[in-house]
């Protein structure tokens, strides 16, 4: 059997190897930067380094997401012992310039620089994304050098119960949307008795415009694996599934590779780190159905069944995958675990709010000057996120509303700028935290149109099992289409509201129960816009 890995040895060797280079050039190779041309830029940098004979002085590192996707492709140069510099919109020519003129010629290249003093960077607090954009996700050594797998080492010295208590003390809540206390779920699986128990990582991120989990899986796959292993150890699971949507081929590739490497180093598989604890991890890919992010549908999908939710109770922790106790945790939740274990629950509690400790990753999109991936402490206000981090709407337009939680969420109007962004506050404002999509909309956006867009999504993604969701969302979409076209009546609006109530209260799963949220929240805050579109007078009002 392979020797147990000495993590400190690996970290020391890695630091030594790095110190041999005078420069490190990090090129963002995440999906977003790749789409804007990071590939050719990376090759240009690499080629120039070679041409200039700098291979021994300059290390070129492909990294994950640096965050500010709207300014991509991003490149960061880090001179040994000096100040790093961030460059934006790096094409082949700029890439070559960075090597020749900046690294070699010591020029500033100020016109291509991106100020890391922007609130976009300084207001963030990165835990889950602490390695994203900093390390090469395909190298285990990079993760270990940043303290990776140390949490696993210390956890294996604890009793599983003790690990659950640590997470309980941290107050960590599920990042998939509902904010259920993680330790409570763990406790249930821990107490369940069965011949085999399962942990499932939910990486079936499907909200339009959301890509938090993709970044975590692509940019720091070992963090996800370590999190899964901690969860399995705490709950007594011997098998884990990573459920990743097929639309994330790079995440799947990186996770597969990370599993192989971790197994070779006995960080996964049989007798992890020489202990009695064994865990088998398998990747399952989703086939493109949004509903499979719902936990019972997800389990059906893993089993090879039609991806349809079933009634709860029984909850998966009682009867889940293949009829055995199963716990489903969101990828971001799992990615929080290594740091909580390593740095302690008190450290975690210092971030965020009393009831929602820690940070939250958001995919910031829409009408903003700076868009991309951010991680902020819970409880930051909506205004701080939109105006400071996002830089406000471009071209002097007025901010109108923020959409959170995707098709299950709602729109929070600009008047709520002081609303702290956490689970409870957002719910009270008629929206939800959701998995972390945050779309800013300016004055040019029609709110009924926004509701129509999300309803179109829901009516298409309904699994079709229950009547209110299957037919109700379809009818709601029809009504919204009519209203948006200026052909709706007051009677249509009344029916739309009745359908909202019935679909929300009688649907089988979370998809249907939350599908009316975009309609209900826009009706609550922007009713006038709906009324202005109606073609008739309200019933009972005399024509003047």
């Amino acid at each position, binding site marked *: 059997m392979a020797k147990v890995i000495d993590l400190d040895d690996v970290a020391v060797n890695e630091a030594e190897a790095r110190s041999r280079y005078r420069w490190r050039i990090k090129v963002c190779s995440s999906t977003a930067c790749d789409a804007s041309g990071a590939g050719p830029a990376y090759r240009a940098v690499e080629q120039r380094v070679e041409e200039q004979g700098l291979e021994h002085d300059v290390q070129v590192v492909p990294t994950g997401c640096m965050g500010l996707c709207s300014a991509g492709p991003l490149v960061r140069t880090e001179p040994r012992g000096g100040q790093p510099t961030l460059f934006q919109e790096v094409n082949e020519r700029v890439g070559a310039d960075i090597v020749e003129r900046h690294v070699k010629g010591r020029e500033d290249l100020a016109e291509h620089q991106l100020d890391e003093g922007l609130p976009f960077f300084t207001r963030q607090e990165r835990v889950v994304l602490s390695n994203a954009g900093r390390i090469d996700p395909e190298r285990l050594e990079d993760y270990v050098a940043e303290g990776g797998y140390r949490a696993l080492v210390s956890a294996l010295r604890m009793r599983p119960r003790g690990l659950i208590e640590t997470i309980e003390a941290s107050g960590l809540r599920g990042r998939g949307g509902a904010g259920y206390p993680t330790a409570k779920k763990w406790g249930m699986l821990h107490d369940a008795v069965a011949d085999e128990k399962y942990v499932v990582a939910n990486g079936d991120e499907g909200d339009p415009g959301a890509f938090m989990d993709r970044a975590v899986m692509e940019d720091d796959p070992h963090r996800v694996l370590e999190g899964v292993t901690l969860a399995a150890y705490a709950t007594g699971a011997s098998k884990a599934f990573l459920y990743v949507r097929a639309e994330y081929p790079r995440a799947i590739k990186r996770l597969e590779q990370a599993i192989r490497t971790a197994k070779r180093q006995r960080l996964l598989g049989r007798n992890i780190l020489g202990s009695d604890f064994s865990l088998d991890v398998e990747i399952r890919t989703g086939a493109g*159905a949004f*509903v499979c992010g719902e936990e019972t549908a997800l389990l059906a999908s893993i089993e090879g069944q*039609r991806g349809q939710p*079933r*009634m709860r*109770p029984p909850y998966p922790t009682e009867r889940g995958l293949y009829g055995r106790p199963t716990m489903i945790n969101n990828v971001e939740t799992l990615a929080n675990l290594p740091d909580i274990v390593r740095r302690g629950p008190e450290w975690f509690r210092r971030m965020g709010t009393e009831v929602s400790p820690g940070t939250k990753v958001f995919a910031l999109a829409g009408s903003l000057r700076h868009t991309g991936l951010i991680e902020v402490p819970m409880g930051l206000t909506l205004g701080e996120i939109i105006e400071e981090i996002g830089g406000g709407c471009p071209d002097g337009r007025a901010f109108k509303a923020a959409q959170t939680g995707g098709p299950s969420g709602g729109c929070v109007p600009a008047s709520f700028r002081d609303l702290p962004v956490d689970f409870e506050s957002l719910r009270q404002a008629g929206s939800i935290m959701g998995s972390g999509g945050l779309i800013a909309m300016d004055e040019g956006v029609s709110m009924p149109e926004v509701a129509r867009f999300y309803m179109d999504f829901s*009516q*298409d*993604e*309904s*699994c*079709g*099992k*229950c*009547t*209110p969701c*299957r*037919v*109700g*969302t*379809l*009818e709601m979409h*029809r*009504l919204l289409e009519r209203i948006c076209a200026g052909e709706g009546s007051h009677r249509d609006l009344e*029916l739309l509201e*009745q*359908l909202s*109530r*019935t679909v929300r*209260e*009688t*649907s*089988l799963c979370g998809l249907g*129960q939350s599908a009316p949220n975009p309609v209900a929240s826009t009706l609550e805050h922007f009713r006038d816009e709906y009324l202005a579109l109606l073609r008739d007078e309200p019933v009972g009002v005399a024509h003047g």
Partner: protein
Amino acid sequence: MARRQRPNVPVVIDGHEVMAYPDESVLSAADREGIRIPRLCALEGTSVHGGCRLCVVEVAERHKLMPACGTTVVEDMEVRTRSRSLDEHRKLICELLLAEGNHVCAVCVSNGACELQDLAEELGVDHVRPDYQFPRRSVDASHPKYTFDPNRCVLCTRCVRTCAEVEGAHVWDLAGRASGSHLIADLGQEWGEAPSCTWCGKCVAVCPTGALAWKGKAVGEMRHDPSLVAFLSSAREQGEWVDREALR
């Protein structure tokens, strides 16, 4: 279903003290007490589906409505089967079902003996508020004995469960999703071409509407008998058709 024990779990349904069996559903307990809860997909003798949502009830201390068919009784559970909002939800759900397919009673084999029609009457559906979808669906008359008219299908999956769980053939299943959900025979072929069909007719017996019917029935002539499945599975549970002496 035959029971050895007496019902010993006290629950309160609409103010009535009811004694229920330990693993019994709220729907079944209410039925024995003569408290009528509207339902469509529920079928005694098969597994719980919970899809039609007509049987949703209010349960004290639960913040969500629960389907009576899939909710197991708990001691001292308090259930309300009727309220203004429940009535409204059920009526609208029934309207949604009527709007989704092409339900034209006047030309239907099950006219006068249709559970959807009965529900509409029971729930006071005098007109349908949502837009009729008028889907284009073609009839499958390829089977020598039966017909399948998807225009009348409400996707209750009674036939799917009966065929898979009682007959053991699993001819029927669903394909597609959302408004594209539809019933298929075997791998999506015509019913008459589906080799796993045993011609037993149980699916036809349990269909709540005229979607599955005997060939040769004219308007209003079709009579279904869903209780057949409850009879079969209960008899099977009690070992009615096996030599019990030989089993000993």
